[in-house]
């Protein structure tokens, strides 16, 4: 089973001898390092392999190839597997390991190495059982234990992996691989001093054991980089040891990327491919990150180089395919206007909307409206002027968006911001009503400001917190939308101390902790704004730009400790959500009973229970709310006004399920409340704009209530959806222009109507009226 899955993974294929050799070294770098490092730390490695490793470590590439080749077909199966692996043919390596294990079933070393092969091809779930089997054969077999730790760290069980790592390291304080794994985690948490200590210990150990120090040097460069030291002495040392050691630049890139520093990543990756032109992974990453900076041509160039060297790298292949897909997209230029507090006149910033051709026409008016409003709002609120064109990409195919984001399909994200470029699912990328795309766009646009205003130096919790806070405060959807499971986590005191809140995003310890952390961060920012003032958030951004961490920024801007802020958060939550937190169990129980009762056959019960649930937590309007059953129950007993009232309250609190909104608008129109109906329909544009009925109805409502600009937007959008009868739409556009006194476009559009339908009496009459031709 494992073998099939491995063979089908698409990551590796058998390759002919001639094709393997040119890509040897890059694959060596990309695949040989099972734990993300260049070196192998196999204590039982055969001397023949060590000899080849040493040639490679010293940059003698051709000699390394000549060394591995004879071993790859030699008599020893596991040595042949290692050599094939080093030469980049992981499929053959897998086959040899399988046969070696069958030949020596009691050998833990071979199983552990086989596990490492899976780990190196990003298949930790396949690696774990092999490590466990090796540990059954020898419970103290450290190479398997470390492999297991690395596999767990790279899987959903990250916290368990980290716990095991600390335990193993305590038992084996001088093990280089453990020291490096720990140093890497410390660097990710910006614990530079601890990382330094670990790396210094590793250096001593490497020297003592006569091991190549290249990985240690690369992490030393990473630590310097996190201190903003650009000319690290460790680069020189590494290149002196191995002149073609591209990893000295490639490994540190990870620390830029986790801090959203794509420009700096590109600089490092350029250096990596300069010293090691065959570092295909570096070319691939360079292409991917150039694409994040909107350099499409540059991205294509490096991805094509990467593909030539390693056609089986899924990130490269996926991103090249994405570039082909982008040919179906259309760039629409517009301009945002904004004014900072200190400015006396408006400034402008170019905006590019990159939308799929099939939906650009109907979607662009809404993307443009929200983006321009966001730039105006956030420039003012965060006192930051955009310095580069803002690129907004919306993907109708979720997997294209996923590849755009993390180079692989199947991720559960909605939107991502790379700085001045943001990418997100288009509303058509998910089922209608599945997400409020307007809020997602607003959230991502807020990131542009926090990321750029702090020069990518803000902590994760802060940028997410501000985006969530802005969704609640200024976004296109009313209300604070906190999921039930987050309320439950709050109720169970699962919130993290603010100083550690980043861990909730990058190292979650329970299933929904990322969502909980988003909401907690939003509440923290909201609290800071309410208790201390919104300007303090802006000042904190400035402090982050000055390289202060959370503790320092909180202390210098708010004058309090993060511990005090934690206490204040409890008070704030009590103040804002106490009514539901204090009655959480009761509310959930009532809500469950509401949904267990039938609104049609047991309307009285549903009305009583739903009212009770809404009294406890009236703001709850998301999935499983009590308003919809309340509406249905009132409908069932013929109390239509009460039914409308229930829906209206739901809408006022931020309900956004499109079918219910359509229903509410319809009922309001029937009651003669066209203006209210149009407001409800307008809100659907930010959830599910891919609807002919919506734009047709809203356009006509706007015509009726005299919102002619709104009507024009709706009818233009309607045309983008290719309605059955365009002549009616053009006629309505002509009428809106006529009402605005814009007679030339009115005539032009009535002619467009007649172009479609020359015998259209109403259009003929309007044409006669507009031209004054009464003959």
């Amino acid at each position, binding site marked *: 089973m494992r073998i099939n899955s491995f063979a089908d993974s698409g990551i590796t294929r058998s390759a002919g001898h001639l094709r393997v050799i040119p890509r040897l070294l890059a694959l060596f770098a990309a695949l040989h390092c099972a734990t993300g490092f260049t070196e192998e730390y196999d204590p039982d490695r055969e001397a023949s392999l060590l000899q080849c490793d040493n040639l490679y470590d010293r940059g003698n590439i051709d000699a390394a190839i000549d060394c591995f080749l004879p071993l790859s077909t030699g008599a020893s199966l596991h040595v042949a597997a290692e050599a094939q692996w080093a030469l980049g043919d992981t499929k053959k390596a897998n086959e040899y390991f399988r046969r070696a294990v069958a030949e020596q079933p009691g050998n833990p070393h071979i199983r552990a190495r086989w596990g490492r092969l899976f780990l190196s091809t990003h298949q930790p779930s396949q690696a774990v059982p092999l490590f466990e089997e090796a540990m059954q054969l020898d419970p103290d077999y450290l190479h398997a234990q470390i492999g297991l730790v690395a596999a767990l760290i790279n899987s959903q069980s990250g916290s368990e992996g980290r716990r095991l790592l600390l335990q193993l390291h305590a038992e084996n304080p001088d093990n280089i691989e453990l020291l490096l794994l720990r140093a890497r985690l410390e660097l990710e948490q910006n614990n530079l001093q601890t990382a330094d200590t670990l790396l210094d210990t590793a250096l001593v150990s490497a020297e003592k054991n006569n091991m190549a120090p290249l990985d240690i040097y690369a992490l030393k460069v990473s630590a310097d980089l996190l201190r903003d030291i650009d000319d690290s002495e460790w680069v020189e040392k590494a290149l002196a040891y191995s002149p073609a050691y591209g990893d000295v630049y490639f490994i540190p890139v990870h620390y830029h990327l986790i801090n959203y520093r794509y420009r700096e990543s590109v600089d490092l990756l350029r250096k990596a491919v300069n010293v090691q032109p065959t570092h295909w992974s570096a070319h691939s990453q360079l292409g991917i990150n150039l694409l994040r900076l909107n350099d499409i041509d540059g991205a294509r160039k490096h991805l094509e180089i990467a593909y030539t060297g390693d056609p089986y790298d899924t990130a490269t292949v996926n991103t090249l395919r994405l570039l082909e897909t982008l040919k179906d997209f259309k760039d629409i230029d517009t301009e945002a206007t904004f004014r900072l507090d200190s400015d006396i006149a408006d400034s402008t910033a170019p905006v590019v909307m990159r939308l799929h051709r099939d939906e650009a026409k109907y979607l662009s008016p809404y993307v443009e409206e929200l983006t321009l409003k966001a730039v105006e709002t956030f420039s003012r609120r965060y006192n930051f002027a955009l310095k580069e064109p803002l690129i907004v990409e919306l993907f109708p195919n979720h997997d294209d968006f996923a590849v755009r984001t993390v180079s692989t399909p199947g991720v559960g994200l909605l939107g991502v911001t790379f700085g001045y470029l943001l990418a997100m699912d288009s509303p058509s990328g998910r089922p209608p009503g599945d997400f409020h795309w307007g809020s997602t766009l607003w959230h991502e646009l807020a990131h542009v400001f926090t990321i750029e205003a702090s020069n990518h130096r803000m902590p994760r919790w802060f940028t997410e917190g501000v985006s969530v806070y802005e969704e609640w405060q200024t976004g296109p959807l009313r209300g604070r939308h906190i999921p039930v499971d987050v309320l439950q986590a709050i109720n169970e005191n699962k919130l993290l101390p603010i100083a550690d809140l980043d861990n909730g995003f990058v190292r979650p310890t329970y299933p929904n902790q990322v969502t909980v952390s988003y909401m907690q961060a939003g509440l923290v920012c909201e609290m800071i704004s309410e208790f201390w003032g919104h300007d303090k958030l802006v000042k904190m951004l400035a402090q982050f730009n000055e390289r202060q961490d959370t503790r320092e920024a909180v202390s210098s801007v708010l004058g309090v400790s993060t511990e005090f802020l934690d206490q204040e958060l409890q008070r704030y939550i009590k103040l804002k959500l106490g009514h539901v937190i204090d009655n959480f169990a009761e509310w959930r129980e009532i809500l469950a009973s509401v949904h267990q009762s039938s609104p049609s056959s047991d309307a009285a019960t549903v009305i009583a229970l739903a009212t009770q649930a809404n009294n406890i937590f009236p703001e709850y309007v998301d999935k499983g709310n009590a308003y919809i059953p309340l509406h249905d129950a009132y409908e069932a007993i013929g109390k239509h006004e009460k039914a409308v009232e229930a829906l209206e309250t739901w809408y006022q609190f931020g309900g956004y399920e499109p079918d219910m909104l359509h229903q509410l608008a319809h009922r309001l129109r029937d009651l003669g409340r066209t203006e209210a109906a149009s407001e409800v329909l307008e809100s659907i544009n930010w959830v599910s704009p891919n609807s002919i009925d919506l734009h047709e109805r809203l356009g006509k409502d706007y015509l009726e209530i005299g919102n002619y600009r709104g009507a024009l937007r709706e009818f233009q959008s309607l045309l983008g959806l290719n309605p059955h009868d*365009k002549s009616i739409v053009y006629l309505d556009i002509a009428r809106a222009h006529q009402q605005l006194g814009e007679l030339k476009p009115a005539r032009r559009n009535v002619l467009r109507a007649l172009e479609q*339908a*020359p015998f259209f009496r109403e259009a003929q009459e309007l*044409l006669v009226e507009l031209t004054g031709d009464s003959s």
Partner: protein
Amino acid sequence: MRMRSLWLAGLLWTGITPLANAANTTVVISGLGGNADYTEQFARYATSIADQARLAARSPQDVILVRGDAAKRSIIIGLLNNLSKGPALDTLVLYLIGHGSFDGDNYKFNIPGADITGDEIVEALNALNTNRQLVVVATSASGALLEPLTQDNRVVITATKNGRERNAVRLPMYLVDAITDQKADTDKNEIISAKEMFAYADRAITSYYNTEKLLASEHPRLEGELAQSIEVARYGNLLTLQASIPDELLGKREAISNQISTLRLRKDDIDEDDYFDRLENLMLELADVQKTIDQAGNSDNAN
């Protein structure tokens, strides 16, 4: 000759249905329902289609409806044979409503007794002496007939894209909606063409499956260049006042309409403002004639 073909091309491109009074011979056949619901539905759809055709027909004999037990193999083949023996027909419009089947090789239209095969249908239609044909096979698996039926001067509409779509189809219901709902008439000339009927029904089917969140089990198809020029229904003044509208006015209306088609063909070669200026003049002229037609019809009607 060149002018004529240019005009014809323009007509197809611009999507305007010619105004000449229809000279259709319409045959509507509803097949075996298999159960009471389908039997009733098929008969109702067939009746509605025939009723609508009769409204615009020159003579009641121009519309033939065969349904229920009458839809036997011998009767259908005999009917088509008889049509082939008479004088040449201008336009034959044939609707087959019901269930169809396809065994991988042969399509069959399900009727009481022995089914009629696709080959028999094709053979009978090929034998007819007609200028144009519209063949609507609104049955399951009807896509199997798309290719065998396709030929010059024939428009073919099927309910499915191939013979493997075997579920009962919704196309007949939407065809009825199309010919009775003015919304299908997108060029607003009070004539619903085969193309407009198909476009309306096709959209309605797509919308139905999308709204119901069902995997679509039917994908209607249309083949044939003449779909825009074959009339399937008319309404409004053109229908109610057709007898009282002077031919001269109708001719004038058609002449202007042809000029519009020609102008539209040249749209890409003309400066935009110039194009719309010329179009405006023609449209004003057409509006004027249209007004006269409406008034003429109304005044005659009042007398």
